[in-house]
């Protein structure tokens, strides 16, 4: 039996968290568990641009429409950008929106439109006239600063006003509450998830601290580097390693190759480079529920984290170490505790793993996501949002 026609509007299909989550939701949907009631939605993905996740999305979705290349811009995008630079923002946006609508006119009319991340909100603005009275679901994967980068100030009111349903991976924090106003109380928590880990054959190393992610402000790479300096003073035998793409221009420190962090670059599977028992530090500034933390949890690593969003809940009740303070010394205290107290660390990591296996696996999260997009009642869930 065929289900509703769903358009998922997605940001560029790169290697970031939102495209990765889209792949995981779609994989679950295509699994026997996702098809259990026989009414599988017909999913058409419309993405801002090509990227490393596009092939997998294309394999899993009914159709995939890419509105730009992985690098650079489409012709329409170039024309729009030039128009905006010359001060004709509204006309430039209209040109691009018209072009985007033409690119989706072959798709069947949607019953549901899911805006998968705030980065896709401009796509909604473009294709809305083609969507009739479709139910609109805004599934945020960002907090307020990142949302502000994707949605111009003049448009932000619409994030609360237009959707029929709003979801986020964690309970709204103060910034998200300010953005959504009264609708913040209606936010449905649909956490991110991680698939079962593939073990690697590296030797266990309890003297290693690892950070993972695209280097930059949001992931707090500079905080990791500061932590590494502090640990080098306190515990010179501890090594610190960062796995992930280098920072964008302007964000790299001169002379940091001489510092205490081993910069390991981007890898398609960073976990193949992380030995068992390494302590994973997630020093994010603003990240609703980082995939790295969930993936580390499912692999049984101890996690030390900071930042706004769902990490505090994830690591609550003795499941890890959460540092609210911005003082790097406090982060170092927590990392030291995770490195030193083997019994406590093992216990916390085991609790975290059990929690993640029960609540943050695709089979636990997938039904909640499907309920969100179909508007059907959600299955019974953990009463604590974000946990």
């Amino acid at each position: 039996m065929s289900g509703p026609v769903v358009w998922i509007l997605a940001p560029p299909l790169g290697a970031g968290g939102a495209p990765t989550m889209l792949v995981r939701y779609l994989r679950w949907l295509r699994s026997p568990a996702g098809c259990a009631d026989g009414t599988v939605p017909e999913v058409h993905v419309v993405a801002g641009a090509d990227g490393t996740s596009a092939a997998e999305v294309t394999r899993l979705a009914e159709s995939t429409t890419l509105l730009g290349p992985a690098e650079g811009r489409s012709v329409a995008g170039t024309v729009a950008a030039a128009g905006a630079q010359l001060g004709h923002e509204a006309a430039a946006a209209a040109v691009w929106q018209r072009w985007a609508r033409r690119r989706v006119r072959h798709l069947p009319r949607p019953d549901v439109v899911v805006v998968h991340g705030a980065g896709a909100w401009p796509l909604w603005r473009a294709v809305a006239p083609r969507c009739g009275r479709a139910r609109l679901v805004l599934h945020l994967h960002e907090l307020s600063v990142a949302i502000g980068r994707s949605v111009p100030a003049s448009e932000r009111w619409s994030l609360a006003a237009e959707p029929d349903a709003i979801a986020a991976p964690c309970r709204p924090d103060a910034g998200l509450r300010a953005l959504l106003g009264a609708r913040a109380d209606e936010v449905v928590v649909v956490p991110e998830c991680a698939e079962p880990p593939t073990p690697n054959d590296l030797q266990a190393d309890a003297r290693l601290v690892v950070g993972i992610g695209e280097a930059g402000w949001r992931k707090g790479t500079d905080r990791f580097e500061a932590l590494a300096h502090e640990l080098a003073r306190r515990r010179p035998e501890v090594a610190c390693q960062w796995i992930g793409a280098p920072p964008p221009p302007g964000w790299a420190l001169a002379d940091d190759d001489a510092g205490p962090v081993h910069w390991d670059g981007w890898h398609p599977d960073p976990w193949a480079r992380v030995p068992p028992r390494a302590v994973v530090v997630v020093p994010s500034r603003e990240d609703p529920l980082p995939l790295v933390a969930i993936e580390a949890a499912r692999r049984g690593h101890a996690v030390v984290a900071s930042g706004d969003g769902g990490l505090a809940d994830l690591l609550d009740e003795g499941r890890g170490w959460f540092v609210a303070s911005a003082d790097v010394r406090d982060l170092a205290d927590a990392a030291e505790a995770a490195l030193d107290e083997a019994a406590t660390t093992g216990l916390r990591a085991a609790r975290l793993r059990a929690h993640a296996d029960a609540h943050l696996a695709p089979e636990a999260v997938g039904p909640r996501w499907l309920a969100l997009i179909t508007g059907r009642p959600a299955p019974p869930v953990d009463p604590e949002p974000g946990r």
Partner: protein
Amino acid sequence: MRAAPQVLLVSHDASRTGAPAVATSFARWAARTGAAQIHVALLGGGPLTSTLRALGPTTVASRAEVELARAAGPRAHAPRLRRAARSFDRPPIVVANTLAAWPAAATVERRDALVCWVHELDRLADVLVAPDQRSALIAATDRFLAAGPAVARMLVERWGIAPARVATVPPLVEPPAPGAPRSERRVLGAGALVPRKGADLFVSVLASLDPPLTAEGAAWVGGPDDGAYATQVRSDLRRAGLDGRVHLVGPVPTLEPWWPADGVLLHPAREDPAPLVVAEAALRAVPVATWTTGGAADLLRDAGCAHLVAPAGDVVGLAERLARLLADADERRAVGRALADAAAPQLVDRAAPRTLAAIRGDR
């Protein structure tokens, strides 16, 4: 008597940031002393445009030219630069002020020499001129002015340019205005609100300060204060609980009233080979704490204050150095005096003749 050299000075813009400000000081000195005849060609506008126009012939790229250059490359500037070169009675020395202006400056064929005044270090340098474009430009360039020893090391050791073609010149710093008002704030940071200048790291250091920042607080001066990066810095301030004690001032016409009367300049730039603001602080005897990411560290070492230089990225290390300075008035005075002595050769009247000699290729 040797004729005053004719110089076509090509600058990427006329913002109040370091390199355009240094070029403006140089043009002002040349106009005042008659030591050189300068025509300024700007590849973009900015608040210093009117100052430059008052000093001498100055042309500015139109908006259409800027857009064309963005799409089609530096050749878009060539016709205007050619006209500017023809305004001299003999082929001028063409000086590219920053790597951003280098490819455009190299399009001027009627020239006596091509000089590149480099104000950038590796990471920004690679962004502005891709390594595969560099060799042709290096071959076309007669000599290089390095804005500090770190830049000279990059040019010689990593770009393979013969040392004889590289002259290290100090930033040109205007003398302090006597009797200017000072700020009560204890810590000042200054620079464009862009990641490279490190305002987010300024917040990180203040968040790790022990004892915590006092009620007099701190200020970061520079803009734009309405961009995405400013939002990130504000978010950091809120998260650190510092939003009431650290003032993001935004762009100002002069830093003068923001210099702390009894405080410290904290300079946590990610990459900054010759920070003008550090030289300006030094000339006002304002002590500085920094890390090893460029010219601020060089100046502190020259002043015998290497103990105030933390390793790059060591937030706690920098916070500890800042805390020690804030706690010790005698140390602040001693460091301030040492920095003022070390920075004195960077005063315009002392440094500009050396810069002009380097532009002419006098050894």
